[in-house]
């Protein structure tokens, strides 16, 4: 009898596969498709351009001694900076999140703030402080100081969520404090740290401005040479494909190192918040270390700005409204931050909740723009919009879209850290209580991931507010942002006039940085038991 039943009623493998999979929410699919389309736009431009160059041209471009040197320069810089950022970021996060450090809230903000200082201001600050600063070590130092917050942020969020119970268990199993940190704590925050390192790596691959100032030549320099001196888009795009290749390697590397390994808690019960480690005699040492870090990362550029405000001569440039530039910067950045965050939600949600090859591919794709110079992405948009959407060309909307593409990776990282706060289980319970999925999303999911959304918003806002290359290409004619005005004045030696613009850039970045610093730590703790 039982055999008969099995033969008759066992569904085919096919039906099982389909009904076993939960249906994808349409909104998510639409959002993720839009994100993928936007990200693919500059990539398609690159490929279309690059395929115009013949094989011999590719050989001429790539098989040069100087290109090999530049490539090696890029790789060794990227490796060194990424490792240093990881150490600084995790170390600082641990001090702020897990020790009884005095003035923690202040540190939480100060440590994020270097993100809000554009690379050209950082380089400018260092060179005016120490004119002889250049070469590999200078580049490593300057880039580490400006990029470590990208590791600090996710690391501090993750540390806030670590279950102290696990650490206590490890100690009871005979592990010392350092062993416990390495084998238990670090394991738990590992995906977050790797995510931050990925951003650092990709950002370094695309970096140009700061290296120009400290005279360190990377592969991106070769790309800019083709653009600026050769006016050879084809060659520049062909070289850019090498960057794409490098970033694909970085993305694969992150996966291989366990960037997606689930670090979900097993077992029931409420997560225990960790007790803070008293620093005792070490208080002064830690305070000094964090103080030095902030002084270098924040003090030097800000200090040089102050110096120039006080000592710079007046500019003969036509005076423009700094308020208008501020308003434009704020409006564009906020809009871009909103769009990028909105796009990152479905991308991340699908990759985390409906993981398969396609959703993972889209999520990985979303990181690529970070590794491409803004110029390449902006030219891709120029090329697309003059052909297919001329009414969009050099409109505010196009610039906002460009920002959203450029900084989508930051939003994805922010949202990724938040998505774990809401579990599918909670949403199911919400539905069993009689609410439609949309209502459940608004009343359960959204409030739970809100801190992460705020973080994503702030990260994109800060980066957009300091963006220069794409802004110069895509802004509406006649519109100035803080970054473009700063650039105009500095290229004219009017450092005194330029400094207030840079100061404002830092200031409007400080607000989201403050939000980031506070929200990430406090709300990570509140959302304990999801």
């Amino acid at each position: 009898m039982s055999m008969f039943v099995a033969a008759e009623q066992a569904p085919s493998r096919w039906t099982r596969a389909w009904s076993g999979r939960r249906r994808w929410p349409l909104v998510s699919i639409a959002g993720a498709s839009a994100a993928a389309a936007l990200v693919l736009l500059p990539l398609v431009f690159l490929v279309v351009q690059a395929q115009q160059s013949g094989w011999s041209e590719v050989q001429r471009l790539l098989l040069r001694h100087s290109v090999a040197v530049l490539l090696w320069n890029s790789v060794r810089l990227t490796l060194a900076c990424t490792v240093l950022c990881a150490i600084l970021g995790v170390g600082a996060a641990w001090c702020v999140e897990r020790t009884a450090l005095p003035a923690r809230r202040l540190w939480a903000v100060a440590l994020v703030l270097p993100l809000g200082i554009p690379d050209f201001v950082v380089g400018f600050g260092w060179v005016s402080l120490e004119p002889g600063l250049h070469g590999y070590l200078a580049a490593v130092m300057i880039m580490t100081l400006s990029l470590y917050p990208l590791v600090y942020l996710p690391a501090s969020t993750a540390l806030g969520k670590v279950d102290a119970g696990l650490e206590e268990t490890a100690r009871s199993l005979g592990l010392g404090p350092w062993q416990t940190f390495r084998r238990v704590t670090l394991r738990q925050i590992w995906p977050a740290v790797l995510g931050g390192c990925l951003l650092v790596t990709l950002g370094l691959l695309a970096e140009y401005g700061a290296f120009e100032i400290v005279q360190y030549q990377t592969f991106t320099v070769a790309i800019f040479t083709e653009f600026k001196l050769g006016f050879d888009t084809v060659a520049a795009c062909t070289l850019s494909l090498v960057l794409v290749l490098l970033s694909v390697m970085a993305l694969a590397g992150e996966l291989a190192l366990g960037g997606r390994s689930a670090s979900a808690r097993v077992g029931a019960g409420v997560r225990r918040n960790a007790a803070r480690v008293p620093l005792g005699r070490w208080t002064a040492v830690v305070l000094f270390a964090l103080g030095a870090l902030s002084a270098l990362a924040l003090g030097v550029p800000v200090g040089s700005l102050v110096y120039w405000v006080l000592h710079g001569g007046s500019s003969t440039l036509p005076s423009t409204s700094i308020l208008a530039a501020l308003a434009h910067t704020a409006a564009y950045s906020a809009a871009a931050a909103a769009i990028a965050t909105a796009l990152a939600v479905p991308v991340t949600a699908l990759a985390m909740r409906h993981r398969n090859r396609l959703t993972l591919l889209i999520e990985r794709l979303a990181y690529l723009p970070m590794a491409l110079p803004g110029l390449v992405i902006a030219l891709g948009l120029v090329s697309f919009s003059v052909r297919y959407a001329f009414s969009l060309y050099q409109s505010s909307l196009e610039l906002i879209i460009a920002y959203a593409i450029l900084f989508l990776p930051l939003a994805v990282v922010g949202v990724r850290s938040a998505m774990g706060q809401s579990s599918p289980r909670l949403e199911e319970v919400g539905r069993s209580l009689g609410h439609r999925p949309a209502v459940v999303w608004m009343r359960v999911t959204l409030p739970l991931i809100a801190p992460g959304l705020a973080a994503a918003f702030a990260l994109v806002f800060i980066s957009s507010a300091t963006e220069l290359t794409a802004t110069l290409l895509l802004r509406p004619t006649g519109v100035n942002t803080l970054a473009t005005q700063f650039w105009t004045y500095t290229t004219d030696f009017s450092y005194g006039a330029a400094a207030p613009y840079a100061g404002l850039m830092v200031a409007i970045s400080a607000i989201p940085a403050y939000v980031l610093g506070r929200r990430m730590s406090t709300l990570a703790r509140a959302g304990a038991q999801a």
Partner: protein
Amino acid sequence: MRRANVPLLSLLSVLGALLAGGCGGASHSGRELTLYNGQHEQTTALLVAAFEKQTGVKVNVRSGDEATLGNQILQEGSSSPADVFYTENTPVLEALREHGLLAPVAAATLAAVPSRYDSAQGDWVAVSARVSTLVYNTRQITTAQLPSSILELAGPRWKGKVGFAPSETDFQPLLSAIVKLDGTATAERWLEGMQANGRIYPDNETVVTQVNNGESAVGPINHYYWYRLRDELGAGGVHSALHYYASGDAGDLLDFSGAAVLRSSSNRSAAQAFLAFLVSRKGQEALAHSHSYEYPLRPGVTPARGLVPLSSLHPAALTPAELGDGSAALALEQKLGLL
């Protein structure tokens, strides 16, 4: 419910941004002109103001790095919103000409400045000039030590003393001139010597600043960078001076700013009028009295106070057209790994 503010604020800011940018759309009404400006901004602002006052045509200025703007126009192709492209250097104009993106300049405009400075094909007009010079730190170098030719800088005497910016658009014409006057082999040897002797800076501003600071003793730059630094620092902060090479030397070179009308322009007449204004007496005088310290090219217009008169200099007998788009220099720099 305060969390709901995030999306609400975002929405408002999107609307705000759209409204704020609404005025920026390119318009081609005939009484308006879109200028892509790669020239120093205050120079342009001055000229544009004078032009607007004289003609009543409104000029929308889009300023940027000239190379970036050049690449942008290359991508825009026949759809470019630009009517006029005004640049600090001519190679970018040559590159656009090679792509067939420039319209011929009116004959009268070309005739207003010495024709040897203009595009050989008449596709762009030279507007102003700078002289390449050597800036030297007056505390480290005496006038007796100064070289008479730029070629000397590659010699062992200058080891560790030279600062230069090989990636700048001003450097390539120098190299192109050496290639043209002394041959590729000499140029390559010279570049190798510079590489061995010198410190590499990202731009001319850094070259002049660091020579003034004493990090480098000398550096090849166009004259006006020094004058502008002097304005920024005030007389008390200046520890450097300019040196002009012997006449006819490859280092003693004129660099030109230029302007062109885009073939795609739908405002050709206004665009041509703007070019004509740039080389008119009024335009050239405005230029001469600006902060830019460039030499006007129209005969009879005197340059700004303090400048060595153009007539007293005897630059190398090379036209911009002869220097071309700098591809030979670029190839050389790439070969030696300077780019």
